[in-house]
């Protein structure tokens, strides 16, 4: 008996096939079976043709000159009725940013914005319908802000207009929560600009003084320049350094020591000493150094605030759930927001829609894909009367269900009421820098007091005071405060270029401390959808293969659909006669004079087909009989991601490994071989079990990294020290986590962790380097001879060398770990 293996790669269109097909005049994709020809142009589908016509009617054909693949393929047609619920006051109020009764403004996230032509088209939206005002696109955020007149166009019409052009905005349950507060980015660059302005201008005066200008001629400029410098420095100290005052005050109140406290003390010392010198006419002060210090510190903060605008690291199930669902009201179907649902409502779910709450099936056949919710890799079939859980996706036909629980208290969503989600992990305090600051501050205090005591004892109280303040000035840990932000910030950027996105810089420190790695199975180690389809039995001839392919095109059941994809090759479908599908059992049809039965072993047996015993026990199989004789069976087996085995092998040397899967034990043996004897493999895990497992590991002193993808991993990701969410496409939904990583990067995880460890070493070296500068300065300061010019040179010099070293060394590390440059 021969076995013909059909790999899933057969489903992708082969290159020669692609070049033969004309590309669509709208979206640029190859025109395949659904191609339409109109207006002397080829279109891949009627949806694209419609958009082309709308654009031509409105005289906006420039759209196609801007980019080759300008258009967005219309995946599913939309009707305005679908969006009518948006006009309900309660929903509308939450979505609209601003409304004065006449005009309103709304901001939508539109994931399909991808090129310059999209920007142009969306900003020309006013040409389509009266009442649409100015629209502004924010490309990196993939957002469009639209103003419109309430009297002329409703919100639902606006969304329908966007959808008809292929720019359907993301509307999910989370959209109703209102806008999130914007980060304090504006304030920071204002502070930064002001500090830079004062630094530059004061330096112009200071350079004159350092060169002895005040002694030239008869006029003495020193006092004047001092007052001007004071005037320029005052707003910097008050406004630009505001965050340092606040942090220092918090430190004092809570009796903790962070890097901000010595910085604030240093600023006070410099400012007080400088003011004293200016008013007493004994010197020109250190205002240039002061503004330079604050300027450099703020650059460090700005570098640290790097965030990925398209990504969100704190999503919950609400961002995954749709905003609306179709509810049956008597004989009418109405689209209602999920927030308006009550227990007992009858809902209609079409192919591809999500179940919003735990419910019981009333009619229709459910083929529910729970891979994102429970980790079960294969869709499960449910009949009328059975329970389905929130978050599952219907992959069969239309299903009517009755809600049995409110949306927020379903099996899955109740996970978010666990205490883990209530507490905010504060990882900003326990970092390398703050641990070093403790030692640093004690040393500096001892030196400052010691120097003052020494001069006091020698009967020179003036020198004692000067030495004391000088030590505080020189010890102001500016370079120190810059070391970690620049080393870790560079590492974060290098990883970002490789499509590994970190929530913030501290994530790298945590990654370096991890000693236990826990994996989810479905979607993380295995690739979703990419099941390996194998045929067991005598190899199919071409006519049979074509007949089976033609038949599978008529089914929506996931198993035949995947088989159809696997055997697609370059067959053209044939006419299928008397197709009949028996839900949950199988399907039959006549194709090219062959009577084909395709279904479960028991269904074939009930039709008097002898199923060989070796095939009966195969799981996930579809059996074929042609003209009443058994022909063989297809089996589907989830396949591991490419190089996942190498990753496990690389990690198992240095880390404890574990597997947490919501799936059944079927594949225990396979993963046992993969993980080795030491690893802890757990199957049939509920979302709460997963969270508890991570918690237990942490109780036993482990620092845990959780790698997962689905909503069922959300608790474990949140509880773990370092949660890594795996996504197929960047920008797609991912549960709250510390790291978002593109699926094809999963095999590089070991590399990323090694890189993190080395980056933390770079931070330590940078810290040592900046401390060396501080101690050279301390030596000068303790002798009471600190001249402003020494301060003005030492401070920028130390900052620049530390920043240069931190960035350079991290880049070198990136090259060493092959992270440099753009990914091909």
């Amino acid at each position, binding site marked *: 008996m021969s076995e013909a293996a059909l790999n899933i790669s057969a489903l992708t269109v082969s290159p020669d096939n692609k070049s033969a097909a004309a590309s669509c005049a709208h979206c640029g994709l190859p025109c395949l079976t659904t191609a339409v020809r109109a207006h002397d142009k080829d279109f891949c589908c009627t949806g694209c043709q419609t958009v082309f016509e709308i654009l031509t009617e409105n005289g906006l054909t420039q759209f196609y000159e801007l980019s080759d693949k300008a258009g967005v393929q219309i995946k599913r047609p939309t009707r305005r009725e679908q969006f009518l619920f948006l006009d309900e006051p309660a929903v509308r109020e939450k979505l609209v940013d601003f409304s004065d009764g006449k*005009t309103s403004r709304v901001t939508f996230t539109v994931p399909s914005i991808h090129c310059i032509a999209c*920007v142009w088209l969306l900003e020309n939206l006013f040409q389509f319908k009266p009442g649409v005002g100015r629209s502004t696109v*924010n*490309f*990196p955020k993939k957002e469009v802000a639209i*103003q419109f007149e309430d009297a002329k166009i409703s919100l639902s019409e606006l969304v329908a207009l966007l959808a008809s052009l292929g720019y359907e905005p993301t509307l999910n349950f989370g959209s109703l929560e209102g806008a999130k507060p914007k980060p304090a980015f*504006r304030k920071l*660059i204002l502070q930064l*600009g002001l500090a830079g302005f004062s630094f530059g201008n004061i330096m112009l005066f200071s350079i004159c003084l350092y060169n002895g200008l005040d002694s030239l001629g008869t*006029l003495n400029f020193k006092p004047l320049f001092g007052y001007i410098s004071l005037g320029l420095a005052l707003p910097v100290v008050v406004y630009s350094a505001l965050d340092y005052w606040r942090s220092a005050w918090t430190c004092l109140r809570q009796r903790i020591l962070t890097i901000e406290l010595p910085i604030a003390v240093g600023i006070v010392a410099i400012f007080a000493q400088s003011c004293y010198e200016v008013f007493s006419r004994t010197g020109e002060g250190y205002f240039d150094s002061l503004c330079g210090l604050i300027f450099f510190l703020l650059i460090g903060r700005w570098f640290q605030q790097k965030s990925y605008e398209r990504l969100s690291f704190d999503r919950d199930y609400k961002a995954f759930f749709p905003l609306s669902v179709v509810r049956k009201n008597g004989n009418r179907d109405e689209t209602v927001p999920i927030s308006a649902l009550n227990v007992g409502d009858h809902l209609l779910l079409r192919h591809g829609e999500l179940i919003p709450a735990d419910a019981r099936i009333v009619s229709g056949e459910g083929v529910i894909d729970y891979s994102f919710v429970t980790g079960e890799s294969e869709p499960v079939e449910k009949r009328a009367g059975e329970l389905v859980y929130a978050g599952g996706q219907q992959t069969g036909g239309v299903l009517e269900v009755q809600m049995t629980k409110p949306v927020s208290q379903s099996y899955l969503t109740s996970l978010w009421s666990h205490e883990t989600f209530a507490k905010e992990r504060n990882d900003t305090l326990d970092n390398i820098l703050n641990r070093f600051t403790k030692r640093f501050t004690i040393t500096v205090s001892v030196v400052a007091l010691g120097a003052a005591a020494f001069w006091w004892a020698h009967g020179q109280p003036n020198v004692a005071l000067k030495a004391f303040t000088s030590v505080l000035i020189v010890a102001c840990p500016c370079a120190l405060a810059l070391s970690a932000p620049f080393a870790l910030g560079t590492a974060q950027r290098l990883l970002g270029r490789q499509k590994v996105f970190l929530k913030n810089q501290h994530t790298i420190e945590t990654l370096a401390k991890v000693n236990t790695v826990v994996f989810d199975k479905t979607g993380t180690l295995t690739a979703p959808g990419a099941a390996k389809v194998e045929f067991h039995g005598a190899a199919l001839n071409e006519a049979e293969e074509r007949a089976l392919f033609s038949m599978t095109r008529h089914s929506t059941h996931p198993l035949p659909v995947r088989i159809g994809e696997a055997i697609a090759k370059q067959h053209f479908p044939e006419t299928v006669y008397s197709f009949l599908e028996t839900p949950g059992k199988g399907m039959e049809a006549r194709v090219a004079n062959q009577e084909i039965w395709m279904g479960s072993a028991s269904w074939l047996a009930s039709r008097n087909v002898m199923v060989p015993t070796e095939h009966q026990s195969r799981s996930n199989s579809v059996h074929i009989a042609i003209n009443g004789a058994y022909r063989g069976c297809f089996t589907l087996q989830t396949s591991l991601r490419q190089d996942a085995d190498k990753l496990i092998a690389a990690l198992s040397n240095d880390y404890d490994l574990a597997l947490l899967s919501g799936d059944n034990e079927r594949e225990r043996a396979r993963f046992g071989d993969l993980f080795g004897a030491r690893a802890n493999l757990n199957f049939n895990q509920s979302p709460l079990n997963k969270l508890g497992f991570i918690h237990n590991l942490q109780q036993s002193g482990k620092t845990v990294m959780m790698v997962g993808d689905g909503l069922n991993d959300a608790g474990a990701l949140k509880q773990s020290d370092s949660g890594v969410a795996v996504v197929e496409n960047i920008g797609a939904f991912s549960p709250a986590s510390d790291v978002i990583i593109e699926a094809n990067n999963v095999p590089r995880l070991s590399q990323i962790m090694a890189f993190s460890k080395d980056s933390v070493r770079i931070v330590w070296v940078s810290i040592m380097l900046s401390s060396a500068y501080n101690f050279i300065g301390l030596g000068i300061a303790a002798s009471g001879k600190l001249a402003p010019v020494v301060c003005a040179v030492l401070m920028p010099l130390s900052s620049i060398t530390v920043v240069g070293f931190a960035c350079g060394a991290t880049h070198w590390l990136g090259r060493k770990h092959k992270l440099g440059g753009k990914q091909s």
Partner: protein
Amino acid sequence: MSTIYMMIPATLLIAGGFLIAYIWSVRNGQFEDTTTPAMRILTDDKPISPEASDLETKN
């Protein structure tokens, strides 16, 4: 050297002008999105929105 007494207020005035321009540009939101304007300039004609300017001022 007494010209310096004239020069200093003049330079500070000019510098202050630039500072005010900077503050205005930040408040105007010009630093929020630095990618899209670079793309917008490549398209031939700017969108001429009929009532755009009126709507804008009401914000």
